């Protein structure tokens, strides 16, 4: 289990992470979402002891990552598949990890096979495609059979087959009672993979919820169409409702309100509507709604 409590990190004048607290529980695939620069990677780096928090703590199974006797056998991590020595072979990459963590060398071949790189073990990293490097990075994270998996954007470069494979792998990993923290910007994919999501914006927690709960909150988006919805949009803005308006002002999407309320407003302001309906929520909608700054609404 990963426990993040009051984590804070500042780089110069930039506050990367601010008073962030959450828990990643065993048995779940936890999606870690946020726009670019939200602080996801910084948080992961602090969990793994690469960066020091200015305040707060990050522990894995009750103690800081580096305090475990053999830390890499507790947490398997992939922060970037690009950060491998290009001249080292795929096998060589796993070999040094095996030796540093006391994993039997016999596991190298098993792991290469498991990630679909059985035939390219002697190929150098620079000769591998991005997808293959991603698989190799995942193999490196799984080499030690850890209880916790931390993956930063692992879907990058994977083809559809690879995405399906990773989805199954993460689910099986969690089914074994292990914990997974995975960040991605592919919201639809996360919707199919994660069962819990943590959303951060500007280093602060925006949501920590089961996916089902998050989606339930989202079905309150309403789409209205009509010849001129400017008055309706203004009314919604005045109520503080997040509204997206198309350039012709003929369509609006209002978040966090019910269709009945929009209907009442349109009658009150004499706005003609062609159609009005609730919009099905997606994780992407949730993400956009949660991470949009107030100025954008």
């Amino acid at each position: 289990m990963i426990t993040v409590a009051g984590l804070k990190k500042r780089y110069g004048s930039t506050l990367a992470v601010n008073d962030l607290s959450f828990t990643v529980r065993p048995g779940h695939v936890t999606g870690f979402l946020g726009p670019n620069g939200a602080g996801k990677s910084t948080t992961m780096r602090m969990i793994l002891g690469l960066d020091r928090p200015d305040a707060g703590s990050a522990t894995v199974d009750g103690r800081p990552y580096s305090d475990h006797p053999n830390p890499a056998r507790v947490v398997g991590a992939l922060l970037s598949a690009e950060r491998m020595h290009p001249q080292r072979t795929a096998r060589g990459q796993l070999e040094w990890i095996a030796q540093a963590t006391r994993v039997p060398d016999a596991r190298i071949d098993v792991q290469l096979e498991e990630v679909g790189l059985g035939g390219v073990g002697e190929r150098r990293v620079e000769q591998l495609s991005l997808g293959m490097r991603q698989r190799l990075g995942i193999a490196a994270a799984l080499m030690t059979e850890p209880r916790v998996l931390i993956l930063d954007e692992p879907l990058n470069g994977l083809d559809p087959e690879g995405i399906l494979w990773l989805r199954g792998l993460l689910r099986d990993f969690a089914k074994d009672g292990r914990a997974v923290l995975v960040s991605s910007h592919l919201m639809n994919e996360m919707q199919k993979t994660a069962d819990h999501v943590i959303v951060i914006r500007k280093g602060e927690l925006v949501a920590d919820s089961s996916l089902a709960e998050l989606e339930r909150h989202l079905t309150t988006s309403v789409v209205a169409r009509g010849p001129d919805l400017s008055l309706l949009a203004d009314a919604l803005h005045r109520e503080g409702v997040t509204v997206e308006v198309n350039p012709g002002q003929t369509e609006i999407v209002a978040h966090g309100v019910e269709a009945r309320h929009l209907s009442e407003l349109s009658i009150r302001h004499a706005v003609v509507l062609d159609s009005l309906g609730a919009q099905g929520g997606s994780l992407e909608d949730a993400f956009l709604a949660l991470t949009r700054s107030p100025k954008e609404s």
Partner: protein
Amino acid sequence: MTDQVDTPSRPAPPLPDTRRTTLRDAVRAERTKYGSVRTLGRITVVAVVLASVLAIVFCISIPVTRGTAISAMKPQDVVSAGLLGIDVAAIVLVVLGAMFVGQEYSTGAIEQTFIITPKRARVLVAKTLIIGPIAFGVGVVAAVIGLAVGGVVLLVAGSDVAAGYTAATFRLAAGSVAMPMVYAPLGVFAAFIFRSTSGGILVPMTMGILGGIFGWLPASIAGWLIPLVPLAAVHTLSGAAQPGGPEDLGFGPAIVSLALWLVVPYLIARWRLTHKDA
């Protein structure tokens, strides 16, 4: 928006290996890293080859550089010329030490190194324990080659070969091996301090060059500065220092000087690694 999710009752995963990893594990991993990057192996071979080639060049070019026929030279000086190959090997080994660390920073691979071995000082020691023995091995091989080349050149020139191998010659050979043994680890420490190959190369090279530059300064200043650079200690150990000159530190102070040139950069690198973000 937060909610609590109960942990489902699922089979517990296997307990992780709770045996504490040691420096030995880190050294094994670093040895594998060294062996699995072809460039590093090639640089090691280049160090030996260049030391050999330049030992030959330094010996056979004596008539040009000294204006004297080899047969007219003291045999000891001919063999000593062959030992200059060790200096060349030391320069290449500095590059090796710096690259062994610097490449991890330039490729970003250092991140995974520190995830796998979060005790970063252990990585520093492990890398030093790989480069140190390699520097020693290459230094010894370069010394043996230098001695052999000197003997062959003496033989070809019709000089007394045995006269070339005096106690002073062997001391020069043994003392000169100290140069790669100090400079290559210094390259490792500097690369960690500056997080780059170029930083790792620049520091030992500057230390090497400073000895020469200080020699140009007025004697009163040079007398203070020259003993401070590691080259003075190496020259003391090898007997190359002029007796009574600023490089002549004495055996004990020379050992202390070289130890300090290793310990102080090591401590700076260690502090940098353990007190700063990776």
